[in-house]
């Protein structure tokens, strides 16, 4: 499999409902065998995009090609895609076996082959021996796996998944994430996965498209999204972060020294920044540390603490009125009291440049 093989190509694909634009014209290549996620808040257009690929919605403009062939005008039942629905949509009147065999029977596959393929896929999703169960006899996680098997057994070019883990409890979600990755690797099928849960997208995906208001904010690997968010939106969506506005105070080659509400950082590889430029920075809570008196760079009043088990989230008050979150491993002893002045330290490269001239400088 070459890296260049493209399974899905969106060319200026947009969708309007009436005069409301849900998806702005999008361009995207999804590679063969890739686990690709569309990540964004509800209403960002991610599900609509997925449904356009499936053929459940028609784009108002642009072209979708799957394995090089345009699928515009091809009805849903004739597309080489299969979908795992958010609400599963299993058929309650059929057994597990007949649910999975539904697509194969429609294609007039021989009985013998149906039996072989269904039992093979039941093995893949670890439901051997469950073929004759009724759907109502299965747990949520088992139903989930039947829904995946029912789609995957048809050997689609692309498997589309619409927030399939949303209804499961956290333990099961984490387990099913690992299962999904295992199934995807085992089948080699291209997965397009829609979710609003950044942890899910980061944990499973090869690449993620972060969507906001019908547009892609950034299409990148999970690591790049986390460490090099392209916008304030992406930085905030990758989990709790401190977004601070600051100013370039000094320039030394391609190193820019910035100051943000008393915190100073060095940004590397910033040839175009000049002294006096306004910047917007993202500083992740785990890049800031509690410090002893000697090595503290700054001392701030502690507003409150949130004990989270392994870690503690400390919230400090900045002179400008904003808050600053710091995440640290929980101490074995007592937590510092709110109201105390606590010293902080950080590495010079702890900040990420989000924006050169911030339009709005809010922090949370």
């Amino acid at each position, binding site marked *: 499999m070459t890296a260049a093989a493209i399974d899905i190509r969106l060319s200026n694909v947009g969708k309007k409902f009436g005069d409301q634009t849900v998806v702005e014209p999008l361009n995207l290549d999804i590679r063969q065998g890739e686990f690709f996620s569309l990540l964004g808040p509800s209403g960002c257009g991610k599900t609509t995009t997925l449904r356009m690929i*499936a*053929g*459940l919605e028609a784009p108002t403009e642009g072209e979708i090609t799957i394995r090089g062939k345009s699928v515009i005008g091809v*009805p*849903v*039942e*004739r597309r080489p*895609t*299969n*979908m795992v*629905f*958010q*609400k*599963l*949509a*299993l*058929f*309650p*009147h*059929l*057994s597990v076996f*007949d649910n999975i065999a*539904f*697509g194969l029977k*429609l*294609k007039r596959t021989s009985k013998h082959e149906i039996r072989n393929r269904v039992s093979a896929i039941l093995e893949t999703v670890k439901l051997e021996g469950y073929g*004759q*169960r*009724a759907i*109502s*006899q299965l747990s949520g996680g088992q139903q989930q796996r039947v829904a995946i098997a*029912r*789609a995957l057994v*048809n050997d689609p070019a692309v498997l589309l998944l619409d927030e399939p883990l949303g209804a499961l409890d956290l333990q099961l979600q984490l387990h099913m994430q690992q299962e999904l990755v295992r199934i995807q690797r085992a089948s080699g099928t291209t997965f397009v996965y829609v979710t609003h849960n950044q942890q899910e997208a980061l944990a499973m995906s090869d690449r993620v498209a972060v969507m906001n208001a019908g547009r892609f904010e950034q299409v990148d690997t999970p690591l790049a999204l986390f460490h090099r968010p392209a916008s304030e939106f992406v930085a905030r969506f990758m989990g709790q972060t401190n977004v601070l506005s600051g100013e370039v105070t000094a320039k030394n080659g391609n190193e820019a020294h910035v100051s943000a509400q008393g915190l100073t950082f060095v940004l590397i590889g910033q040839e175009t920044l000049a002294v006096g430029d306004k910047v917007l920075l993202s500083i992740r809570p785990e890049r800031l540390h509690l410090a002893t008196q000697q090595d503290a760079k700054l001392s701030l009043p502690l507003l409150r603490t949130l004990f989270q088990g392994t870690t503690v989230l400390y919230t400090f008050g900045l002179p400008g009125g904003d808050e600053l979150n710091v995440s640290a491993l929980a101490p074995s002893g007592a937590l510092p009291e709110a109201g105390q002045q606590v010293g902080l330290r950080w590495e010079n490269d702890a900040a990420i440049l989000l924006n050169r001239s911030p339009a709005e400088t809010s922090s949370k």
Partner: protein
Amino acid sequence: MTLRERSPWLLLISPVVVLVALPFIASLALVIGFGFSGRQAIGLEVWARFITDPFSWKVIWTTLWLAARVTFFCLLIGYPVAFALNQLKSPLARGIAFTVLFTPLLMSVIVRAYGWIVLLSSQGLVNSVLGIAGLGPFRLMLNDFGALIAMVHVMLPFAVLPLLSSINQLPPSGIEAARDLGANPVQVLLRVIFPLTLPGILSAIEIVFALAASAFVTPSILGGGRVLTLPRLIYDNIGSLDWALAAVQSLTLLGITVLVLFSLRRLGRLFRYEGATR
């Protein structure tokens, strides 16, 4: 559950027992009593009289055939109507649609029947309009057709309600899932929608058939004397004080209805997947 735990529930259903079950059992006992004794002293003689009379069989056939066609047309019209109602999202549109559908039930059955006469009689609205076009007049009432159309009108809501509730219970995105798995619209209907709404279809058949087989006023008024059904015959026999024969006919009607409903129940069980037991 012990009796003590059950007693509040027994208390709650006691009005049903008093109002429905007791009178039902009492009158049934009475009818059975009449059917097997009656004025003719030996009941079986009345049964023989009823069974050997070819007229009885003709009436039974008329009753069943009329009820079957009413049921069929109620389903044929009611199924798409229920589907359309289920699609209506705006509360206003739903309100209007339900009002229109259920208006027949707001009127007395007599008023409704005479309403149909205004439409269907030889000088009625339909024939007048057709007359302008140079057609007719057609005989639209005082016959089988008149009874049929008026009964379908009355009983349509009883078909739509159970259909609507089963259509409402279709799994969300089930239709889309079937399409996505390669089913064309006809296959979706036959393989997913029909089996999943079968409980509603069977309930609709049960209710409409039972009502249609025992209907008296509508077939009497719009069928005139030409549509002789069992309920009509029972009425006539009570009028002529042949209570034993009326009782025999009542039991026959009850027996047929119970038999039909029971068969439908069994039929419904064939289409459900209960799952392997282990």
